[in-house]
């Protein structure tokens, strides 16, 4: 009864807030549903016969969830997902309420599978309520330290959460990240390890943004035979002998292709080749995480392959629009490791680039913007044609770029709309403008560009 009321109220709130244009109805309906029935997530999640997979980690959880949702849908299941990136408990409550009928039960429960992106710090709570079949841990980087305090805080939260899980829950971990790899030993049930096995993709050395280069067991400095990005790579500790675990799901070959990556995957069921329509090594890791999540659900290689091949960018992650005769690519920037990857990827595609950075410092961006000093912006030296800087902390970004030697006085325009207009004007027709915003800036940028390009606001583009 109570649940039915919660579902109905959430439905009304979702429709209302969508009509008012108040932001896609992503958080409020869940908040209301939880207020009316605090047990709503537990009971609705429990009704889904195919169970749920949770995806957490600093980088890649939105894209990984989206890829896994594709895979799950391709297997003939009906996914329930918090697609808009609202990844706290209320976002999951909203998604579940949206999949329920007026009686307060999930519609066609026999065919439902949950794919939920979960905030790092909220994971323990969500794992208790949702009782998932599997949890995917993508990686752990410094991010939003103003919220979490320290990276180690998140690592210990995860360890405790994994230890508290029932034996039946499968843990899927990135073996190339020492922080997620170490979770394997705390698991009571099955562990699936994924990793990149293509040494050609290794970069020269460890980046400034790297954080977990100390052995989690004995504290000694880790050695690397291959570094793919940040602290992700083939690591080993000379001091205590701990080392990167052998992956169960591996990408043995990753080659940049036109608008994507040509990949060869190995799973326990054999091999398959796929052209991933997303660029950058970090997206190869997202594909690996999604494929390993699919393996946890018992899906076969053909299903994994098709799901990955048909994927599209998650919102604000390498989305492409055509605006006033220019290609615009929106790439979300969250933290040093992620942004270094983005800069490396766009640099390798272009001899001359037009770029606009949008730096905000709201809670969802991380209020502390110190992280921009750990980003290797000098990767773009000599490659920039147009440079525009905007956002609440536009001048901090301008200063960072000045000291990276990119421009002595970058063009600063605090207004999002004006900055986009200037950046588009500087970009020659037919060329690509890279728009690199932090999270809340991304929402603004998408709204403006979406209107100019004649696309709807972001929640209308998402299907439930």
């Amino acid at each position, binding site marked *: 009864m109570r649940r039915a009321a919660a579902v109905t109220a959430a439905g009304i709130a979702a429709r209302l807030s969508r009509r008012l244009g108040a932001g896609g109805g992503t958080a409020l309906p869940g908040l209301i549903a939880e207020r009316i029935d605090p047990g709503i997530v537990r009971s609705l999640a429990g009704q889904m016969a195919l169970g749920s997979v949770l995806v957490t980690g600093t980088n890649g959880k939105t894209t990984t969830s989206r890829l896994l949702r594709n895979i799950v849908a391709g297997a003939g299941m009906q996914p329930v997902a918090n697609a808009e990136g609202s990844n706290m408990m209320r976002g999951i409550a909203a998604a579940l309420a949206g999949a329920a009928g007026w009686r307060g039960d999930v519609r066609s429960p026999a065919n439902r599978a949950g794919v939920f992106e979960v905030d790092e710090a909220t994971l323990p709570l969500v794992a208790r309520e949702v009782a998932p079949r599997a949890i995917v841990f993508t990686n752990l980087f410094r991010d939003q330290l103003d919220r979490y305090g*320290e990276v180690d805080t998140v690592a210990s939260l995860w360890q405790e959460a994994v230890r508290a899980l029932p034996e039946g829950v499968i843990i899927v971990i990135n073996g190339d990240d020492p922080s997620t790899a170490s979770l394997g030993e705390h698991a009571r049930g099955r562990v699936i390890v994924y990793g990149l096995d293509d040494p050609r993709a290794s970069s020269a050395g460890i980046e400034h943004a790297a*954080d977990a*280069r*100390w052995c989690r067991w004995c*504290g000694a400095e880790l050695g690397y035979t291959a570094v793919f990005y940040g602290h992700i790579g083939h690591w080993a500790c000379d001091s205590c002998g701990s080392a990167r675990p052998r992956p169960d799901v591996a990408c043995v070959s990753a080659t940049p292709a036109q608008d994507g990556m040509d990949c060869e995957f190995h799973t326990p069921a054999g091999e398959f080749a796929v052209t991933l329509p997303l660029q950058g090594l970090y997206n190869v890791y997202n594909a690996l995480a999604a494929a390993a999540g699919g393996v946890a659900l018992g899906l076969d290689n053909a299903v994994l392959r098709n799901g990955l091949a048909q994927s599209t960018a998650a919102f604000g992650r390498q989305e492409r629009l055509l605006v006033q005769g220019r290609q615009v690519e929106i790439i979300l920037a969250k933290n040093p490791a992620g942004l270094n990857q983005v800069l490396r990827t766009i640099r390798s595609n272009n001899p001359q680039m037009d770029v606009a950075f949008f730096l905000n410092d709201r809670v969802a961006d991380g209020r502390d*913007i*110190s992280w921009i*000093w750990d980003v290797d912006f000098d990767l773009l030296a000599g490659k920039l044609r147009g440079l525009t800087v905007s956002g609440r902390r536009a*001048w901090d970004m301008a200063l960072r770029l000045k000291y990276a030697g990119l421009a002595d006085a970058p063009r600063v325009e605090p207004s999002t709309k004006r900055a986009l207009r200037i950046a588009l004007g500087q970009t020659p027709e037919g060329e690509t403008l890279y728009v690199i915003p932090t999270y809340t800036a991304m929402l603004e940028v998408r709204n403006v560009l979406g209107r100019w390009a004649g696309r709807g606001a972001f929640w209308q583009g998402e299907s439930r």
Partner: protein
Amino acid sequence: MNLRLAHLYPKQMNIYGDRGNIISLRQRCWRRGISLEVEELDIGAPLDPERFDMAFIGGAQDREQQRVAQDLREVKGEALHLAAESGVVILAVCGGYQLMGHYYREAGGEELPGLGLLDIHTVHPGAQARRFIGNVVAEWRGMTVVGFENHGGRTFLGNGASPLAKIISGHGNNGKDRSEGAVRRNVFGTYLHGSLLPKNPRFADHLVTLALQRRHGDVQLEPLDDMVEEAAHQEAVRLATRRTLIRLGG
């Protein structure tokens, strides 16, 4: 002219964009034709007190901080004391600042002995206590300094240290006495990152000037075009206080 800076524990003590401080010093020296040589000194590496004009140490997570504290005591401590006595300019931020004090008492009550270069001590008031997180504006020598603080420990000054700055907005050392950071001769400690030096160009120049004067006598720095630096500074002041004009000396 040239200067040599020891960057202490760059691999461990680097959590909040501390590299920005080195980048700022490098840029401000380079733009004036001063060569700044930076040497990174990791755990185990000895420090030659006569080799350097400046030293920098940043912040870290607790785990790394313990290892660094031990190395400071056992390997570099004596040399740092000698360097400080001879007027070497030392800047310590956040965790590094805490380690310059007498001790850091952890939430569990355990005491991590520091270097005692600054007459301060730091106490973590317990796991339930609020962390001091947010934008900071403080008054330093009649000007503003801006930054971002993120610390659980509360730092208290003894008679041998003076506050580096006075809080206008934010928490500072302990959230009680409006003090921020500490200074004794040319040893500077602060909770401010953000990064600190890039958008506080006058404070950065102050450090460079002290280092140059120690080595080369009476030196005046030529002014730079700091339009972008000052704009970033003013933007930070405005966002932290929601005001554009700050009354100083109150």
